[in-house]
């Protein structure tokens, strides 16, 4: 039987971890529970540590565009609070059923959405962190100001660490002004090469796009360029002109663009099938679309960043990975347990970098208490 702990403070969180470590028991850290199937399929933990009661928005410093959030705060709730002052945390991953995803879970998995094009990923938005470690201590790093180089950047170390180093208790984040309006230019093509060159042209153009996405499904693809700022329609029309010049079809501009982007976000999840996140150089976009097409997969992705989310039949995952041998990463994010047992979801190559990661893990969590077995190389 798994024991459930729901601590309400940083110290209590650290105590849960320390007790488990002393007893040689493993702990799985759970926020909104929307991404429990991500990563390697680990064995049942002895203790489940839920962050649901760490749910306070500790600070929202509107004038300074910063905030301090406890790990269990649902991201949707934080966004609503920021929106009331015309601000946002520029982090827009899909939030799962009932919008349950918490800020802690989003940071721990380094999840992001289309806004990553303009604002970077979670690691670029987290300016400070408080973590509970398995020796019972609570440690902070970074600060509450957007510019700060005092001490090591442990906020980046914990971002995307999948709870394997300790529990994130709270995060300090940088906020941005929320654009008053937006407009999106889109264009379509059945030719991956055309889509890729158009994406490159848009990325190199002196436009300040909020997002630049690609979508691909059933032999047909689209590019979406979203503008915000003071003159969104004007920028979107310029983007549309570029898309036309590059030979895309059905070029259109709309300011009613929310559903388009909702669909892009939804494409980053796979209800019932499998989801692989592929990282390449941006110029390899056409190759990714072709490989996905050959595997009967659908794609959404950040066209200028080289990040693509490929949704496909679990049986096709191995073939997709074989078709993309030279990519930076092809991480199986989500899929049936059997598949995640059969294939290493991370595919991190053995070598000095992985060895260094193991040393980092041992240094922060020597007893292997936190989320054991779920991360790269069996960490």
């Amino acid at each position: 039987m798994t024991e459930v702990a729901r601590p309400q403070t940083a110290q209590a969180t650290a105590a849960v971890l320390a007790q488990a470590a002393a007893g040689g028991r493993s702990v799985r850290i759970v926020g909104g529970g929307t991404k429990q199937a991500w990563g390697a399929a680990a064995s049942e933990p002895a203790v489940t540590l839920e962050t649901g009661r760490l749910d306070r928005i500790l600070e929202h410093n509107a004038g300074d565009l910063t905030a301090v959030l406890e790990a269990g705060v649902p991201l949707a709730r934080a966004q609503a609070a920021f929106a009331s002052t015309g601000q946002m945390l520029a982090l827009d991953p899909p939030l799962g059923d009932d919008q349950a995803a918490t800020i802690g879970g989003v940071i721990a998995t380094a999840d992001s959405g289309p806004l990553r094009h303009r604002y970077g990923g979670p690691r670029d938005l987290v300016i400070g962190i408080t973590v509970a470690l398995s020796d019972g201590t609570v440690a902070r790093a970074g600060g509450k100001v957007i510019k700060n180089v005092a001490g090591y950047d442990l906020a980046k170390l914990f971002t995307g660490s999948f709870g394997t180093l300790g529990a994130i208790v709270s995060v300090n984040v940088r906020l941005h002004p929320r654009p008053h309006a937006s407009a999106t230019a889109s264009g379509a093509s059945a030719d991956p090469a055309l889509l890729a060159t158009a994406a490159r042209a848009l990325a190199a153009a002196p436009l300040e796009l909020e997002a630049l996405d690609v979508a691909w499904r059933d032999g047909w693809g689209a590019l979406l360029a979203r503008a915000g700022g003071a003159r969104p329609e004007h920028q979107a029309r310029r983007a549309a002109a570029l898309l036309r010049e590059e030979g895309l079809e059905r070029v259109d501009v709309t300011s009613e663009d929310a559903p388009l982007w909702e669909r892009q976000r939804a494409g980053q999840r796979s209800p019932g099938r499998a989801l692989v996140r592929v990282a390449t150089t941006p110029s390899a976009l056409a190759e990714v679309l072709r490989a996905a097409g050959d595997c009967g997969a659908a794609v959404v992705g950040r066209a200028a960043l080289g990040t693509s989310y490929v949704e496909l039949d679990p049986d096709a995952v191995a073939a997709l990975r074989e078709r993309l041998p030279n990519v930076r990463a092809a991480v199986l994010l989500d899929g049936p347990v059997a598949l995640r047992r059969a294939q290493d979801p991370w595919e991190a190559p053995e070598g000095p970098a992985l060895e260094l990661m193991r040393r980092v893990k041992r240094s922060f969590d020597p007893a292997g208490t936190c989320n054991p077995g779920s991360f790269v190389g069996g960490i």
Partner: protein
Amino acid sequence: MENGAALISRLRAICGAEHVLTHPDALAPYRSDGLAHYRQTPLAAVLPATGEQVREVVRACFMAGVPWVARGSGTGLSGGALPIAEGVLIVLARLRRILAVRLDDARVVVEPGVTNLAISRAVAPTHFYPPDPSSQVVCSIGGNIAENSGGAHCFKYGFTTNYVAGLEVVLSDGTVVELHRDAPGYDLLGTFVGSEGTLGVATKIELRVVPVPETVRTALAFFEDTGAAGEAVTAIVSAGIVPAAIEMMDRLSIRATEQATGAGYRLDAGAALIVELDGPEEECAARFEHVRALCRDAGGRDIRVASSESERALIWKARKAAFAAMGRVAPAYFVQDGVIPRTRLPEVLRRIDELAAEHGLQVANVFHAGDGNLHPLICYDAANPGEPERAEELANLILRACLDQGGSITGEHGVGVDKKSQMPAMFSEQDLDGFHRLRCAFDPHGLANPGKVMPTPRLCGEVPGPYREHPLERAGVAARL
């Protein structure tokens, strides 16, 4: 030192005798970085020519149990590249090649000794590399990575860490690791940036560059005092405008720079604000009008707009000369580097004024106003007994004032040796312990730039590989626990 002699001949074999300096005269230029009051002569300085030679040098030091310090251009302002008496200084100035320019992917790959400015030059005219420290003509990209350097354009564009896409790093046992932003696993890349040379040496660097903006518009506005200028900054940021740069100077710094540059700044003003917008033409035009209106509303008078590149250069000339120009109004000064939440500017400036008066010293202020990074320049005259000490005390108290408002002890110059004693004012023992865990994972033997960043020397518990007495142990400064 027998061990030392053997190591030096090994270093000569690796880099060539002419690239291993041991004579005190030859070592003189390497005794300090940009903070000249910290000085130390190392056992030797080596100037490897390739990443492979760096690896061999680091490996040789590891085998000899000798600590080392990496050095780029030596412009650091926290004593980060200060040598260690019994250690080796690894000077990266000869690793100056631009290895690849791939504009299709908006990437460049360079060696660590390449200067910051050379990177923007390599990708011009279509692209540029945004983090632009004022020292960009000389400082090295390796040093920028180690310090996570910033510049005037970082409020909009972000800092060094936001642009590093990949690194090749030599760890202190000579192992080479490749770290990439998109690789699965821990973000060791992000963790390495800003680590001040204590986790390893970066030998190859992949950076993201961005397209040059279509337009740049620059305005210079004068205000009665810094309070009014601060209100203008808050109004601009609250309106959802993100200027490319927003820089403030107070009365004393205006006076000094005007004497030095004759850029035409108003000597009767209490504060000057430079606001620069860049981006698509239409977007910029709309925003710029808004900025001018907000400056007027906040009491800005004499708002000047640069109508040509040369007028723009003149506006910036004064700001960029601010540090050097202080020499005209004071025989000597300390440059402080503190950060505050931007909205606390009035309180902190008031506190600085009080402290300056109590200490009988003058403080000039220049800020990266958008991100709350203050550079108070504390003026003193070493000819007056006790004044340097008072100035140093004042500099420290200013940092405390920043911390009291929820700020930081350094925004871009780093901790190095200069601020390590301030670390406990910002971080608890447990926080420092967290940092120590990271350092031990990268450098269990404590050979990479020891004595920097952390306030007290500490050794790591679990030490794989050949055990050697640490120099700190030998000196009786620290014990292994």
